[in-house]
């Protein structure tokens, strides 16, 4: 809801940003003073800071690097820690933040991904996880084969919320079982070699709630169901479903309110059943 009118409205407010020049470098806090206007969000604050190009102390500084694209919380790019909360910067409204925390606003990059610079992180591991669980419908081809399978309203209403996942990373940022994997490229290593080594490391580490939920999205589709086994195998492999500690943080931070724990529970049932089937089919 709109912040009530009696809320504290300063003429300017402080923004503290944890900055880092590049991967592996040390980080430091930088303070910025921003003129207050009504209806700002964290992205417009960062835009103002970029225009100012000086810190609160009046020292010249480089513009802060951050990721964003759609600015309406549907692309997932601008995830960061705003006052310690993992969320999208675009939908973090300044009036609300200042009402909760009049001291100012604190911005940090996500902690579970390698920092590229300042607030920009590399979430490639999440996209790799989608590949691991084969998150797609393996259609025969893209020629004309008529409509897809009929689907009940209930079926659509189950799949649609899962399909709103924008791979923003909030769920894994909040997950105690999801730990950072950060590799540095060796001097004598080509880009391809480095990517391969990185993927191997990713493939041994936890998939995270987003990818688990996506595997359920496809297993519940009539065509996707035909190769459900492949996805369940991935969930049962290293870094799979068994790593989940059921902390339930994921579902509480998801900006799209995706029922992630329901997906995880469903994945649990499907993998158990799949394991039985494997034994009896032997």
């Amino acid at each position, binding site marked *: *809801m*709109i*912040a009530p009118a009696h809320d504290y409205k300063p003429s300017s407010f402080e923004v503290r940003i944890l900055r880092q*020049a*590049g991967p592996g470098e040390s980080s430091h806090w930088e303070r910025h003073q921003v003129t207050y*206007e009504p*209806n*700002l*969000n964290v*992205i*417009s604050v960062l835009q103002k800071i*970029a*225009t100012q*190009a000086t810190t609160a102390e009046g020292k010249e500084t*480089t*513009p802060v*690097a951050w990721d*964003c*694209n*759609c*600015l*309406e*919380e*549907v*692309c*997932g*790019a601008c995830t960061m820690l705003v006052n310690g909360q993992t969320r999208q910067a*675009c*939908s973090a*409204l300044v009036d609300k933040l200042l009402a909760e925390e009049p001291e100012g606003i604190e911005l940090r990059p996500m902690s579970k991904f390698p920092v590229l*610079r*300042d607030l*920009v992180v590399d*979430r490639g591991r999440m*996209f790799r996880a*989608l*590949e691991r669980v*084969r*998150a*797609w*419908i393996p*259609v025969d081809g*893209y020629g*004309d*084969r*008529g*409509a*897809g399978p*009929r*689907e009940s*309203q209930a*079926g*659509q*209403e189950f*799949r*649609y919320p899962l*399909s*709103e996942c*924008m791979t923003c990373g909030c769920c894994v940022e909040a997950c105690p079982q999801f730990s950072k994997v950060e590799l540095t490229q060796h001097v004598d290593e080509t880009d391809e070699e480095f990517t391969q080594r990185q993927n191997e490391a990713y493939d041994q580490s936890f998939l995270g709630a987003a990818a688990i939920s996506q595997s359920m999205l496809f297993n519940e589709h009539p*065509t996707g169901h035909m190769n459900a086994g492949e996805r369940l195998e991935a969930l049962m492999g290293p870094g799979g479903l068994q790593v989940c500690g059921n902390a339930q943080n994921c579902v509480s931070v998801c900006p799209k309110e995706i029922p992630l724990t329901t997906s995880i529970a469903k994945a649990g049932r499907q993998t158990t059943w799949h394991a039985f089937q494997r034994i009896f089919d032997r």
Partner: protein
Amino acid sequence: MAEQRVLVVGGGLAGLAATMKLAELGISVDLMSLTPVKRSHSVCAQGGINSVNETTRQQGDSEYLHFDDTVYGGDFLQHQPPVKEMADWAPRIIDLMDRLGVPFNRTPEGFRDQRRFGGTLYKRTAFAGATTGQQLLYALDEQVRRRHAAGRVEMYEGWDYLGPVKDDDGRCRGAIAQNLVTMEIRAFPADAVILATGGCGLIYGRSTMSMACTGSAASRSVQAGVNYANGEFIQVHPTAIPGADKLRLMSESARGEGGRVWVPRKPHDTRDPRDISDAERYYFLEERYPKYGNLVPRDIATREIFNVCVNEGLSVETERQCVYLDLTHISRAELDRKLGGILHIYEKFQGVDPREEPMKIFPAVHYSMGGMWADYERTAEGGLVPGSIRNHQTNLPGLYAIGECDYQYHGGNRLGANSLLSCIFTGLFVAPGIQNLLSSLPDSAHDEKYDTLLRGQRAVRQLDHDNLLKREGGRENPYVIHQELGDVMTKTATVVRDNAQIKDGLEKVNELAERVQNCSLSDTGNWTNQNVIFTKSLRDMFPLAKALLKGALARDECRGAHYKPEFEMPGVESDDPAERRRQAEAWCDAFEAKNDKWLKTTIASVDKSGEPTLSYEDVDTSLIPPRPRLYGLVGAEVIEEVWKQRQAAKDGSANGTPADAAVAVASS
């Protein structure tokens, strides 16, 4: 010969559709995008995707009527064969998306549900909640991921396209691009380059478009010799949520599901909107356009909202312009099921529940109907030749443009829910032509003989980059210049256009174009330097901005989204039948004269200094003869009557001449 490869630039719907189709055809693709492709601007599309469907077919709808609505809605400015082809493909495209797992809303029996969109009387629009663009994009993203896993597609996410590589014969042999993290500049050899780089909304500062929609890829190609067509045709969406950083889209589907636009009859009525009775509300779209109601084409809805606020002084608020978009008469459950996504956006950003209180909205820049000029090859019947290497090729051989960044399909005004269709259609349709192009080429751009060319052109871009970093500069701030450019463009080239204002705007843009050369960078480093990347894209906004303004200045008429009141043709006001008839005849004469002069594509070609020169090209209207667009015009009936008589007379004489047989067949 080394393996031939295709470079696709842009990972929205068009780029992904092209990539997956090429991969299916066994062609190796390098896919380049500013953002991870899953975060492309197509995610912002909300309402749906159009095609004739089994339900509308039973009401008399057809592919042909979808085609007709599209060209009529576009004020006949688009070449008709590509539009016809697209409308013919539309049902198959939605079937394919359905097979790929897009969670389209369902009827109780399990069929795809449809809603109505603007500019048509049929429920043609399939939808997945109110995040249809996101759902379609994800389906294509998943297919591309599948092809990537199979080794057919290489991903280059986080690369900025700097321009095409042209050989001595003027053929495109690849592109130069820069990595946004490492700042590495690299040459990408390619036997065909497909640009699917979207619109240029950021030229206007704030719009409904995403931050990646700078138009820089189009501009860089245009500066390398590609023609830019119909730049002045910019769609201003009627309903957006005003914001400090962005004007967030409020989908047409809100009206498609029954949303009503109104203002209080009493100016700036301060009462709670829910306390204002029906009689005290002015449902101006419904009153003025009884046939289409709230679902008139976008250009018309936009002008009416603008007019009711600016000229009639009926804006809901005094401080800023806005009107009500009201959904409160629809049940919460239905709203959540069909419009959840957009209501969520309004709630999050405005802090008001639109299920309880009418939304406050105002028009915002939304879509570029114009774009890079792209060719096509037509069949005798008026469709496109499948697999022709000319389809979607720009005037630079080997360089293709698809999706929003091309100028085809939407003419002077795009109908809602046609953009997702045109993006996916062009992506799929271009692929077989590319396949034929590759087999017609005797070699590969990866062959050694092209090394010198590619290295040379890479070095030019590197030098430009290094100079920009080193430059002392004149202390101009690129972000401030961007704001100023946005202000000028928004003031002069949106809803209402006036020649004196455009001239003035053009002068200001020219000044800004000089000043942008003196930008000093606050970051001169060579790692994730967003400052230098932004400054480059800002610099490249100017050639397009100038082309847009010059095109708008020259076009002395009203057509689709391009509205100059000075050249508006008033309707028929008289009550006297004979006088009405005479006025209608005069109206039709004027309409024919206007079409003779202006039913033409504006083509801008840009010289080395970024200055555009205009020329004009005829439009292929051979399938559906242009007719007056009479939505809501006073005296529309009599004008239509006169017009139909004239057409009938023409058709009568045309039947005798074999050369016009195609026209007669099409119109019969």
